């Protein structure tokens, strides 16, 4: 866990807002928080900053390299028939690592199906979601133990779950101090058009729920560009619901860390929700079932490649002499080892017993389900001993 120092910027500095350099992709006055430029230059922002040790800087880089390498293994395993589908996070490492490392131990995460990087920051074995993508389990895990809810496939549905959960925290009296609990709900730019997300904004706002809505605007809802979803910058929507919205450079791990830390702390202290729009880009396909060359041109992809979250951090570490070539090589080797280990274990994942489908239907069991289980098992047993 690393903590940004949210008290660094005092109110007097607020006057400077607006004179700061405008956001990269701006039309009109769009403010985007950035602490590390695509060229790896450390810049300041009047409201947000991080105060990290060299080790913490290196750790953020390590996180990003490892999750990128694990993600590449996921894509390869799908192409090799070991997974039914894979949703790649390539390009979104900074948004996920920065926000994930901003969370406190007691916080609860409501992810989409792409949050492999956030999962990593919760110190969860990265193999956990692979059963879901391999089609051998339903992606159910002990969300209380990991403080990380199930991957949600239904677009935007988890924003409602997160808001309800956050309202529950308030009712339990667990907000209002440094050790208060807060909730983060992840979703994408496409989900911002969903009724669920907008409804959750209403509830979170009027109930002052301790929830942070973290939207990774990766520019595409599968093939639909964000310009077909929103005519105004997404973060400005929060104004209409009555809580703050911030756009952060989603390819800048320091900025996402700073902004998310502040928002989570606000939530845990009882100051209500925040909407964070992490402005980023999905470098790969929506999932392995998609071919992005059919709806976006390579020039656009190349332009975003120049803003790569990992290489800008590496440049920064090199320039500041925080890390050297030996260190980078060591991290690459470590990432490779993690990937090979993951591959081996994914391939060895056992198929479920056919009867497993009846498990967990009711917590206390049910005579009807038990009868069906027996029928099903008898049916299966009828094939035993037959050659085919």
């Amino acid at each position: 866990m690393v903590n940004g120092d949210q008290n660094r910027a005092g109110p007097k500095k607020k006057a400077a807002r607006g004179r700061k350099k405008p956001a990269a992709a701006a039309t009109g006055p769009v403010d985007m928080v950035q602490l590390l430029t695509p060229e790896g230059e450390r810049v300041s922002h009047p409201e947000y900053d991080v105060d990290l040790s060299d080790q913490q800087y290196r750790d953020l880089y390590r996180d990003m390299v490892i999750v990128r390498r694990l993600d590449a293994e996921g894509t390869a395993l799908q192409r090799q028939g070991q997974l039914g589908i894979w949703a790649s996070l390539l390009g979104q490492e900074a948004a996920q690592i920065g926000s994930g490392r901003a969370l406190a131990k007691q916080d609860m995460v409501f992810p989409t199906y792409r949050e492999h990087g956030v999962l990593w920051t919760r110190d969860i074995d990265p193999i956990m979601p692979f059963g879901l993508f391999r089609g051998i389990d339903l992606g159910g895990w002990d969300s209380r133990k990991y403080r990380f809810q199930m991957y949600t496939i239904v677009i935007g549905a988890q924003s409602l779950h997160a808001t309800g959960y956050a309202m529950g925290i308030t009712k339990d009296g667990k907000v209002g101090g440094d050790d208060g609990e807060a909730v983060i709900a992840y979703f994408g730019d496409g989900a911002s058009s969903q009724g669920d997300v907008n409804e959750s904004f209403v509830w979170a706002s009027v109930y002052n729920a301790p929830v942070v809505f973290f939207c990774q605007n990766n520019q595409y809802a599968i093939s639909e560009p964000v310009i077909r979803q929103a005519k105004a910058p997404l973060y400005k929507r929060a104004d209409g619901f009555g809580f703050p919205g911030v756009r952060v450079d989603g390819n800048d791990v320091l900025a996402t860390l700073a902004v998310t830390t502040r928002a989570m702390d606000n939530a845990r202290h009882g100051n209500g929700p925040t909407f964070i729009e992490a402005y980023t880009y999905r470098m790969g396909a929506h999932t392995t079932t998609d071919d992005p060359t059919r709806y976006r041109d390579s020039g656009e992809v190349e332009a975003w490649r120049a803003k790569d979250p990992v290489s800008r951090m590496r440049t920064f570490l090199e320039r500041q002499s925080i890390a050297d070539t030996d260190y980078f090589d060591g991290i690459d080797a470590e990432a490779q080892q993690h990937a090979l280990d993951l591959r081996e274990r994914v391939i060895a994942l056992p198929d479920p017993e056919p009867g497993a489908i009846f498990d967990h239907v009711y917590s206390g069991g049910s005579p009807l389900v038990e009868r069906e289980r027996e029928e099903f098992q008898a049916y299966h047993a009828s094939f035993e001993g037959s050659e085919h």
Partner: protein
Amino acid sequence: MPKLQQFNLPDLAEGLVDAEIIKWLVSPGDTVELNQPIVEVETAKALTEIPSPYAGEVKTLHHEEGTTVDVGQPLITIDTDPGGASGGDEPPAETGALIGEETADGRTAVLVGYGPKSVTAKRRPRKSTTAPLGEQVAAPVAVSAPAPPQPSPAPAPGSAPIPAAAPGGSVPVLAKPPVRKLAKDLGVDLTTLTGTGPNGSITRDDVQSAVSAPAATARPAVVSGGEERIPIKGVRKFTAENMVASAFTAPHVTEFLTLDVTETMAAVARLKTLPEFEGVKVSPLLLVAKALLLAARRHPMVNSSWDEAAGEIVVKHYVNLGIAAATPRGLLVPNIKNADSLGLRELAEALTELTVTAREGKTSPADMSGGTMTITNVGVFGVDTGTPILPPGESAILCFGAIRDTPWVHEGQVVPRKVTTLSLSFDHRIIDGELGSRFLADVGRFLADPGTLMLAWA
């Protein structure tokens, strides 16, 4: 000890049944790394590369380029322990079965809900021992192997395929009612067939190939009685849909112009000698493209499209120039973006790049979208002219015929000159005969005297 690992074609998306081998990226004998791209395949969804699941030495590529392979069929065999002692017919190692292969306990690893077919299509092959690799590979060839076509083929003696049901076994043959009816009508005994459908069920194809059964594996083109049936798919299907859509929505008119292009040929020859054009291909097509671009500037309405939904004609102030290209994948029309803004050398470079990319089969969907006008060069095939069909969304296409030495009246004398025929098809909803004629005449004027017109229109 050599350890042969066979990799079967996986379902690359959700519910795909086959993929076409576009290009092998490795050859037998090559050493491959884990996750190194080994083959480029095209599915109904995408052109994609498959990374190797094993490190080792490539032993066998199971299909030629251009073949359509069913999901679950063998793709490649890799020796993961080359340099080991002899014994190429060792059974595959049992470290983690791939989808569609058998695990050590004899169960077939199948993704829930995806159900790729296995070649031998065993139903629930539990407890069976893993077949030696040689046998597995041989299986597709042996499927319905009986040599002479017979209405009711007997199973090949001692052959590898395992029938969908053991004779006299307790498990009934799996086949859908219409397939049963077909088999009955054709006199085929279902118990003698090997099912290739889900769970080893017998499909319509299985029954038909049992009847017409010569060489068995020819799935894409089943030969029977002197006809060949080629499945309509991929680029062919796409081309057909576009042609039909265009031919039946845009009322086409075609005009022809035969002209003397001796000056154009001379200009091509001179350009080739200029240092500015060193290293690029200068062809008559380049000047035809330039003529089209300059004429389009003089007649902007030609470079437009009909937006039925909006009730508007969209006049484009840029030209994305399409070039129809015959490629190994079929007819592709990649285009040069903003071709009107390019100088002649840049245009030549863009033409070369486009052609090379198309021939290599690397044209991306982005290269093919957004075209505004097109040239089709049938002259390269020695043909004089044609009446091309408009690419959907475009309103003019120029057809460039062969250039021939022809007796021609030139300055009052009949002399041999370089003569060609241009034809222009256009969308009569937007372009009237007058505009189409003026446009085509301008293209012709340029090609008759490119030097002067280049100055006049610059």
